[in-house]
């Protein structure tokens, strides 16, 4: 196990370095000057700021400086938001994004899996049809439309929850719901299909022949085997959610990381974009690592070495 973890850690570091290097050079290919947004005609001032931030130095020099800072986990200061360090931004706003993501997962994944199990168990029933309709609707309707509907319904009409902001638990309900409905739909559909597939397997017939109860068969044999393929996707899903949703965060004024991913590219904020990409790479690598470890727990046949 220890050998496996060490090996994975080394591969992870190499992966992060590769991603950071590729992004460092790719982002410089984007046309434009980060300091010409507000006053596009003031080239002299833009050049001065380029000098100040070392962006006129040879690219290899900038790269070595970037790697040196990265080794100290220092992502530098944002070019667009003067005075704000990328580390501070991550430290302040990642917890918000993470909270939203975790709430969405805690609600969305179990609900989706439960609905999928019930749908497959009662195949063709009203519940099954309703669940299928729910998955189609929530997949087809864009999240920003759902968000606007929820705001009008739950905030303006019913007055149950605030339409935006981030202060207490009640502020998190609508964004969590919007973010989790996609998960509910996805996991419901996948789980239903997997449950039906696993239901055809010989070992279930054997279990039934041994006289095990339906509930025991479902919980200890069918669900467990159906969950394995879901785990594969879960790693990437978690990583994606932990990086924030630009749309949901924008609509509900959630102070998360999502907006920085989009604006840093639009604003050519090199330091912010690179810092976030490296951070995201770490999260993806960590999430996948975690999922690989979970395989061993869910399926005893999987050996980690």
């Amino acid at each position, binding site marked *: 196990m220890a050998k496996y973890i060490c090996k994975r850690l080394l591969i992870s570091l190499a992966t992060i370095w590769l991603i950071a290097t590729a992004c460092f050079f790719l982002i410089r290919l984007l046309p434009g000057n980060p300091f010409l947004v507000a006053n596009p005609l003031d080239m002299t001032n833009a050049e001065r700021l380029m000098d100040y931030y070392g962006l006129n130095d040879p690219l290899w020099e900038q790269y070595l400086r970037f790697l040196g800072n990265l080794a100290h986990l220092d992502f530098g200061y944002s070019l667009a938001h003067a005075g704000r360090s990328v580390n501070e931004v991550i430290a302040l706003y990642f917890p918000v994004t993470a909270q939203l993501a975790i709430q969405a997962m805690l609600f969305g994944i179990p609900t989706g899996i439960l609905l999928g199990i019930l749908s497959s168990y009662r195949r063709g029933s009203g519940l099954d049809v309703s669940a299928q309709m729910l998955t189609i609707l929530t997949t087809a309707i864009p999240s920003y439309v759902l968000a606007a509907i929820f705001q009008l319904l739950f905030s303006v009409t019913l007055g149950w*929850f605030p339409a935006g902001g981030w*202060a207490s638990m009640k502020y998190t309900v609508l964004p969590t719901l919007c973010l989790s409905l996609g998960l509910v739909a996805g996991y419901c559909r996948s789980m239903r299909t997997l449950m039906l597939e696993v239901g055809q397997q010989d070992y279930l017939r054997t279990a039934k022949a041994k006289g095990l109860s339906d509930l025991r068969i479902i919980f200890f044999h069918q669900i467990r085997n159906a969950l394995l393929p879901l785990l594969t996707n879960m790693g990437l899903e978690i990583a994606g959610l932990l990086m924030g949703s630009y749309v949901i965060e924008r609509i509900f004024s959630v102070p*998360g990381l999502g907006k920085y991913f989009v604006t840093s590219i639009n604003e050519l904020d090199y330091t912010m974009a690179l810092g976030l990409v490296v951070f995201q790479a770490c999260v993806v690598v960590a999430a996948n690592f975690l999922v690989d470890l979970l395989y061993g727990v869910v399926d005893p046949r999987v050996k980690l070495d």
Partner: protein
Amino acid sequence: MKKMKRLPALFLCLAVLMATAACGTTTDVRPDASENAGETGGAAGTTAAAGESTPAESKGETGTSDTINLMISAEPVTLNVLESQSNLDEYVFYLTSAMLYRSVDTELVPELCDTMEVSEDGTTYTYTLKEAKYSDGTAVTAADFVYYMVKRYLTSENCSRFVGGADTYNGGLETCEGIYAEDDRTFVVKLVEPITTFDGKLEIYPVNQAYVEGKGDSYGGTPADLQYSGPYILDDWTVGTSLTLHKNPDYISAAELFPLEHVNLYYSGDASSLYSRYAGGDVDAVVSINDTVVEAFGVDNCYRYSSGNMYGIEFNTTGFTYTEGDGFVSRGEEVTALMQNENFRKALCFALDREAICGAISPSALPTNRYVDSGIKGTGETPYVEEFALTDVAPLSGDAEAAKEYLAKALEELGYGDVSELPAIRFLTFENIQQKTMAETFVSQWKEILGIENIEINLQPIQSAIMSMVYMDYDLYLQQLELNPDNMVDMLAYWETAGTVSDPAGFQAGGAPAQVASMHADAEFDALVESIYRNFDDASRLADMAKAEQMLYSAYVYFPIQAGGGYAITQDYVHDFVNPHVEGGYGLAHTTVDAH
């Protein structure tokens, strides 16, 4: 049937879960400062006392509330006023006082300035300052204005006005011979020569050099990294969500100007959220309502304000594009001849129904034929744009017949038999919904009225579009320009032969090949604009301004489309709230809020 009953049960459970989460909040969902500050912890943990007030406490004894909750659609980019690239950061968030500030009627009136004297030759301006201090107790001195002005105020366009300004700007922005502090309370500005556009009304802010250098790169990053000299102090800034401010007791005019103790600014970049939060009663006013949702608010309930900018169509008449590798590259003989043909340009301009375009796309904007703000005063009571009207202008509702005639003349002059033979034309614009819709509407009107189908819209992200504009990589460009009410002539100077819009990359100054012309090369126009800078007689200066405007208009190199605007709305219990001009601030001066 029994199975069907489980579905409602499931939804019931969901509803119960949600209701539980909302427990105790069903009667009042108004965000209050205490929740905001307490639970988010504030940006960099800087939450202070103001955030601890409760709605009950915030109501004054006389039936008024001392707190206002505003919905804003733009938040600061940084609090570092020296490096900010946004004109929103400096003032509208009430954190910094100024030498002079722009009042709600757009006049600049003294704030930290006590007196101003001008030397007889009109080149030396001496300001004495009121006694003022920052929120940390440090005194505001004349050196703070020198530091700001040298570091931030000087630009490539204005630096040559000040003695030593050009050397300072081009040499590293450390000190300037013509901008200095005589003592702690006396600030002096020396001009190279008297010019009409410098009347001493400096909208500059005090920035303490020692404080900035002490903070280093972190200056202005969080509320804790700023000295406050304005009417309010920022307690908490949760980026993307809210700013919480409380009144600065050390501000010079706090008592007279700002009755409100607390200001909570809630940010949303989403138009429908602005409506939901206002309609849901979360906020007392919405500062900037997007045109797309103004109907939901009810246009009659909102009021319009000018946003100080204008859109127009710019024609690349130079025939060249600049590239980093190859230098000046011809855009092709055919398209160059087309762009240089005045009748063709007039055909495109006359074909546009700007009234319909504004009404449909941006109702807060006003269609215009002018290059200046419509509110500018004339020699008497009549506004300048009415006193000095332009002649031979395209009707705001367009003139399809005239457009067709101009096109026919152009085709004949250029030797084309039909519009289908015209070369492809590239129309550059920003990749945002407003500009995209505007560009598509223009192209649609040109197609419908003139039958031109070969105009290709080149949508680019803002950064790429700016670089394409600077290097003139376009035939048509939807150009947005600032309208400075204090300095109308600067707008015209952009269009001098070597002006920044005529010649954005400085080709004329940089030794471009002889065949590369400026977009608007007119020696008579240049001389007229330069003479306006030195003409101190109001009546003849304004008449010359109008003459220059007419010359620019008649050249059809930049065709005005609309003067920008916006809408704002307040709840009934908010009084004397005036939405700030984009660069202004002080919409909250004298504002009161009834208990509600």
